[in-house]
């Protein structure tokens, strides 16, 4: 099954929700939409499902233009962030409802529902009403309804966002296995870069109603096409600072701080760039004498279990250092941090990727 959006845009009440977007989903693959809230992930999904008709552009489904076709006539299923089930029906009837509408016979409905229910470990609850289930079970019920019919396209809109941490971990591991039972194209929206990396597949990074990049998840993580994609794919946000390359040395513009240019960047022409490094590649420089060491005033210091998060002032930019282990800092003190220059990126001042090393 293939789904392609061709120059699709959506305007609601004069406001652009989706800017001119073209994307061809990877058939029978796991396609991830990654972006912050309000980036347009849900809207794009609603366009794919056919719940909204685009202002301009076309939606092609299996080689057919389905732009104006009603959602009932498309073979899709969708799971929302909120737990959406039919409250007046039992879990069995909830899961069976798409099959009943498609006029399957009774025995087949029974067999299919129990199969899916077993897969999602819902079989003890088939007679209950959705309101009598826990949050995780309610969401599993919604997923069962999406799985039971042989839809070509499954849209999952942050399905794990409203679950507690443990359940989320558990379901996240199950997800790829669940949807691998049959050839279907899955679209999965999430705000968390770590979730995208865990699920693998292909990722479309989204920002303010635009897809900034689409490709294999690992590839996008290692080599984001531009600064916006890099910041979408980094949590906490990626650290950047304007630098001047002069031979084998970077100098922070407006200061005399600087560090050695790593091997991958040596062939880059001299000039002004945006240097970027992920928070977990900036660590406190305890007792380290040489390397790319910068100094900054500590703005915020948090210790959460085994990780330390330190926000510090990097020549006017707020940087974050995220490291394992416990590092204590006092707010206001000046501290030294070591940048792992072998895991950094270089963007042009316009935001295009120039070079990347590590990931």
């Amino acid at each position: 099954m293939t789904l392609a959006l061709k120059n699709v845009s959506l305007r609601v009440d004069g406001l652009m929700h989706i800017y001119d977007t073209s994307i061809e989903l990877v058939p029978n693959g796991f396609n991830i939409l990654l972006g912050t809230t309000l980036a347009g992930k849900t809207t794009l999904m609603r366009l794919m499902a056919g719940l909204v008709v685009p202002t301009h552009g076309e939606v092609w489904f299996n080689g057919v233009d389905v732009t104006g076709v009603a959602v009932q006539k498309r073979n899709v299923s969708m799971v929302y962030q909120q737990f959406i089930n039919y409250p007046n029906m039992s879990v069995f009837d909830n899961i069976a409802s798409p099959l009943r509408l498609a006029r399957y016979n009774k025995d087949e409905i029974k067999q299919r529902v129990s199969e899916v229910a077993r897969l999602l470990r819902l079989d003890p609850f088939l007679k209950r009403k959705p309101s009598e289930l826990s949050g995780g079970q309610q969401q599993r019920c919604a997923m069962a309804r999406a799985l039971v019919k042989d839809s070509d396209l499954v849209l999952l809109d942050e399905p794990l966002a409203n679950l507690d941490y443990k359940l989320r971990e558990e379901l996240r591991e199950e997800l790829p296995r669940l949807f691998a039972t049959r050839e279907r194209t899955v679209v999965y929206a999430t705000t968390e870069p770590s979730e995208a990396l865990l699920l693998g597949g292909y990722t479309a990074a989204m920002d303010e109603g635009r897809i900034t990049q689409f490709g294999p998840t690992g590839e996008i993580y290692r080599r984001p096409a531009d600064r916006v994609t890099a910041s979408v794919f980094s949590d906490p946000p990626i650290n950047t600072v304007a630098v001047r390359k002069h031979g084998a040395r970077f100098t922070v513009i407006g200061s005399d701080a600087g560090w050695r240019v790593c091997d991958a960047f040596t062939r880059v022409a001299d000039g002004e760039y945006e240097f970027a490094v992920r928070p977990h590649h900036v660590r406190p420089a305890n007792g380290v004498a040489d390397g790319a060491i910068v100094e900054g005033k500590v703005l915020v210091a948090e210790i959460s279990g085994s990780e330390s998060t330190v926000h510090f002032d990097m020549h006017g930019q707020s940087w974050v250092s995220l490291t394992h282990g416990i590092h204590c800092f006092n707010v206001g003190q000046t501290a030294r941090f070591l940048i792992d220059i072998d895991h950094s990126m270089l963007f042009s001042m316009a935001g295009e990727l120039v070079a990347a090393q590590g990931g």
Partner: protein
Amino acid sequence: MMASRHGTGFKWIVPFLYIVFLMLPIYWLLNMSFKTTNEILGTFSLFPQEFTLDNYKAIFTDPTWYNGYINSLIYVCVNTLISVTVALPAAYAFSRYRFLGDKHLFFWLLTNRMAPAAVFALPFFQLYSALNLFDTHIAVALAHCLFNIPLAVWILEGFMSGVPKELDETAYIDGYPFWKFFLKIFLPTIAAGIGVAAFFCFMFSWVELLLAKTLTSVDAKPIAAVMTRTASSSGYELGLLAAAGTLTMIPGAIVIFFVRNYIAKGFALGRV
């Protein structure tokens, strides 16, 4: 510990007094309905001295009396049915779609309730007479729609807006056509709201006197109009009147029983 034990001794007093004051008129009505008119006028007694069921017997045997109840029940039920049926699609439109002037129209609906019904008595009388609908149940039922439909729309809109629109979308994605979704999933989901809306329509139609009286003469005369009759011919028949009043409260009590758990939400017009 001491303080709370001390406190419990008198905590019951305020609610007790409140309930006593609340129930007193109702009790007195009930008390009167079992007395003879002479006793009511003659002595002051907490209990009927000569307990009698004659008042009730009179109502249930005299057609002009019990027909009053039947007439009232007919137009109230017809009105409730019309109001809720018409309000359901309207409320759905207000809760799910945006259209030109929707907010103004929605507010205007509520202001309809603020106009006293008396204002409309004369035009309605003229209109229904011209259409030969005078003194029919449907005339009163339609007239009461004037204030009951806006009310039902408001209540139902509140309940409907509490249902996420993702439920609608999920149903469409599953393949439900609109009407099938509306009848099989959406209506059961807001069943409590429909109950509350029906209750309010029932009550307001049941207690409305002026329009009902103006638009009827004999065939569709409501019970409230029949009750005014006792004040004329053979002096005051207070016992009979009290029995009629007691019976008037019963339908409301029955309806309220079914929606008792949702009534507070209904008073907030579904917005909680």
